[in-house]
């Protein structure tokens, strides 16, 4: 029976239900988790014996660059990234290649092999949303969605300057529907529009050259609009000044801005059963904290500024963040923050691509290699781990590499090993530049994360943060039947043998999507159906009408006509709108 399966005797980790390694059976019927299967169902059901294995909800990546124009710029300009890392076609699967920027088929398979079933694209430029959706549609194995880049949008900046909040709200909801995207991404607010003139911003109160809106106003307004609209996830912030020594302060100050914004996610969905509150209460979701946590004043006195941020996060409850870990080796840096990548070009002289998008945003791409012999890279490695280890409550953290910026997502098992094993960290310290010890505090940190905390960081919390825990990131009754079973016996686990952790998480014994085994010990065995999520926000019809009059008038500054601007549903695999109720 398709979509029906029994997983027996595994050690189950379902943090949203406070299940911490209990031996339990999980039953899935027609793709959803159920309490039990009837006798008739049990007769011909597929049964998996998970005895001595770790059972978690399918992995959820809430911030990864996997689809769209800039990812493809990375693919196109980097044949040297692809030729050594490839996979052959099989009767079931397509071939593919690419290490840090894999082709879409390969990317989908690699995620699935690690037990991931849901991935959200970190940045969708509105005008190029069709491209992002084309790539997501072609990415197998994963349920997906994407965040719309709005932090430098002309229409929004104009409305904010004029103080017209209603029209700004109507504009955001119209854009989400028009481009079938899920949440608000705010990248270097004000700075990317300035990059249209080759400039940036460096302070929260520095106004944008033309629109005269400050980053502070943008962050505050977007956070308020986000809640006014009832969007399932908090505003997703890539703070100003990224990648510059000393940037940790502006990051911390940015986090202070939405402190008093009251959160009101409001979706019409049926929630899976969970013991903990599965709804988010944070008003800001900071991304790739490591890249925003540089200390010092120059590359000479560069040091970790992580503690300044994590101290703030530990003493406040309105922030959740992902780490942006650096696992060493080849990477491709890519971001909507065009000026940040220009600075990296000046620093490295590498090949550099940039695409500014008219009236909306920008992006930059540059190949990068993190070397253990490099003082700054070694410090960044340590800082990425500091971000996760210093935050005491795991429910405020999400583990990412900001793939492929810190490193490709296939390095997640390695990152997990560092988090779980102090010995793994000490062994790496021995191999890398001494700045990792001297300029960060990681050497003195002895915390070793548990499997339960890893489950929080890699599925429960990403799903909760972005408002997907009504069906993802948990094994509660009614949740999607997405499960990862790892060859890790929690009772026998010896964290000093960290290679066994890497091996365990690298290839899930089984990845199950909607009740169907899709990959098994590193081999893809089925190509499941996939869903693409986006928010459908109901707003005031009058506001929308007034807003569209403005938008049509201003459309003359685009080179694409108003009628040819939207992204039709045709570009989505199983389009799944989520009804959102804006404040009246």
């Amino acid at each position: 029976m398709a979509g029906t399966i029994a997983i027996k005797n595994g050690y189950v980790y379902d943090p949203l239900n406070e299940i911490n390694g209990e031996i339990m059976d999980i039953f899935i019927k027609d793709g959803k988790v159920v309490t039990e299967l009837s006798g008739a169902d049990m007769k011909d059901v597929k049964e998996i014996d998970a005895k001595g294995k770790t059972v978690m909800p399918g992995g959820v990546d809430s911030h990864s660059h996997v689809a769209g124009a800039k990812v493809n710029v990375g693919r196109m300009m980097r044949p040297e990234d692809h030729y050594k890392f490839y996979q052959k076609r099989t009767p079931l699967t397509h071939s593919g290649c690419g290490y840090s920027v894999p082709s879409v088929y390969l990317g989908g398979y690699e995620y699935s092999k690690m037990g991931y079933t849901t991935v959200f694209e970190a940045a969708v430029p509105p005008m190029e949303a069709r491209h992002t959706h084309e790539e997501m549609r072609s990415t197998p194995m994963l349920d997906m969605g994407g965040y719309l880049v709005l932090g430098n949008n002309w229409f929004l900046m104009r409305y904010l300057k004029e103080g017209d909040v209603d029209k700004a709200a109507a504009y955001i909801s119209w854009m989400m529907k028009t481009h079938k995207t899920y949440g608000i991404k705010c990248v270097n607010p004000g700075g990317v529009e300035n990059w249209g003139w080759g400039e940036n911003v460096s302070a929260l109160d520095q106004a944008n050259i033309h629109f005269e809106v400050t980053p502070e106003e943008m962050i505050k307004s977007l956070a308020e609009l986000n809640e006014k609209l009832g969007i399932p996830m908090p505003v997703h912030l890539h703070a100003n000044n990224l990648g510059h020594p000393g940037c940790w302060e502006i990051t911390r100050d940015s986090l202070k801005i939405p402190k008093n914004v009251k959160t009101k996610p409001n979706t019409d969905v049926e929630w899976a059963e969970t013991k903990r509150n599965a709804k988010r209460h944070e008003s800001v979701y900071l991304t790739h904290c490591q890249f925003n946590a540089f200390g010092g004043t120059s590359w000479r006195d560069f040091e970790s500024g992580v503690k300044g941020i994590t101290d703030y996060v530990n003493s406040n409850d309105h922030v959740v963040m992902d780490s942006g870990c650096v696992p060493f080796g080849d990477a491709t840096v890519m971001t909507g923050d065009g000026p940040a990548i220009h600075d990296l070009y000046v620093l490295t002289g590498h090949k550099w691509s940039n695409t500014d998008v008219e009236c909306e945003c920008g992006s930059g791409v540059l190949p990068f290699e993190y070397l253990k012999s490099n003082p700054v890279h070694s410090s960044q490695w340590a800082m990425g781990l500091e971000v996760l280890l210093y935050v005491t409550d795991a429910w405020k953290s999400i583990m990412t590499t900001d793939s492929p910026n810190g490193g490709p997502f296939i390095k997640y098992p390695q990152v997990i090993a560092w988090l779980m094993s102090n010995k793994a960290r000490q062994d790496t310290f021995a191999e890398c530049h001494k700045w990792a010890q001297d300029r960060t505090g990681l050497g003195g940190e002895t915390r070793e994360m548990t499997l339960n905390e890893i489950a929080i960081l890699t599925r429960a919390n990403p799903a909760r943060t972005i408002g997907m825990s009504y069906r993802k990131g948990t094994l509660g009754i009614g949740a999607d039947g997405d499960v990862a079973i790892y060859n890790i016996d929690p009772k026998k686990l010896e964290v000093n043998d960290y290679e066994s952790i890497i091996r365990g998480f690298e290839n899930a014994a089984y990845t199950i999507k909607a009740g169907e085994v899709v990959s098994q010990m590193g081999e893809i065995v089925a190509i499941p159906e996939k869903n693409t999520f986006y928010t459908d926000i109901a707003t005031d019809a009058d506001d929308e009408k007034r807003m569209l009059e403005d938008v049509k008038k201003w459309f003359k500054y685009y080179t694409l006509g108003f009628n040819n601007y939207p992204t039709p549903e045709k570009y989505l695999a199983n389009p799944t709108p989520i009804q959102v109720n804006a404040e009246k």
Partner: protein
Amino acid sequence: MVFKNIICPVCGGSCDDIQVELKDGKIDVQNACKMGNAKFQEVVSHHRILKPTIRENGKVKDVSWDEALEMAADILVNSKRPLFFLGSETSCEAQEVGLHMAEYLGGLADSNATICHGPTVMGIQESGMVGATAGQAKNRADMIVYWGVNALESMPRHMSKYGVFPRGYWTKRGRFDRTMVTVDPRVTPTAVASDLHLQLNPNSDYELLSALFTILNGREPHPSVEEITGIPISVMKQTVEMMKESNYVSIYVGLGVSSSYGKHRNIEIALNFVKEMNNYTKCNIGALRGHCNVAGFNQIASYLYGYPFGLDFGKGYPRYNPGEYTTVDVLREKDVDAAFVMSADLVNHIPADSAKYLAEIPMICLDIAPCPSTTAADVVLPGVIDAMECDGTFYRLDNVPVYFEPFTDSPFPETKSNEDTLKQLFAKIKAKKEA
């Protein structure tokens, strides 16, 4: 009925404001350029290929769609190493099916970039490209450079829609707010319309770019460069100063750069020059892509398989090595034994040796009108005209995907689109291969 906002399926400009009226076997087209108008006339033209044909014992005969597809499938299934040339005058959707077939059969897949802006793509692989969507230049650029391209004739609406004349946000006076420079050995209409024409000697682009780069870096270029390029060093200095003093420089390159001596090295140094120029002022570069979807193949081949053109699936995974797996080379080296050519008159556009071999091997051709390639083909499948008779996706010159919708239907009950035709062919190939 009048249809508005139709996308033009001719050049990489993807004009999206075409208005058409189809009535009594005639078509009236508004807003399109001469090239666009001519293509729209194809939809009612008398020379359209309307029936599938096959060549049997040297004679061409009309057959049913099913027979033609059967024979096409036989040719491809029996081939050891088929070449799929997935032309740029059709949708990404059709090209995607073609790529899947090439992968399935272990053949090669290539597209027009291989004989066009392929060197540009290779230049990007050396340097990266600092670009922007077309509207950035429209709203901001106060200096426009056309290098090795005659925009007025190759992309006739580029100057009016994107480059020189449009009134953008910070360029309210249009042409009067912009300085226009053309670098071209010929005195083209574009050059005549420019404020400054650098009439360099043919094939001296690399030397001129090197000299400009040297000046940008504050050094004096070698005096011999004046004789080599035909441009006085004082003019070179003036050009660099003009760029540095502008607020926003937008450079467009054409085949004059990527197909003159130096090829991708010309592009590489142009891209490096632009990268460095960004330390002084905002500067972008972009290629004027010839066909409506030549950029699209580069995009989808990259995201589906990792490489932008010239893909070889002979080993079961994608490999890329321009000069080895690219169309002209595999034909010249007689390295393929059958070919599928879609929406591109390949025979007409490759060197004689390669064209001769292509005509010798079994070839399937999908196209809308007779051309040397269909004449040399063993199976001809009638093409459906994208953006007129079916919907789909093109990628514009600046890699912005454009969704197009039809204003009429496919004239063939057997197929809705080229994508549909290819899917039917693929189904037959799978059935034969797996039988």
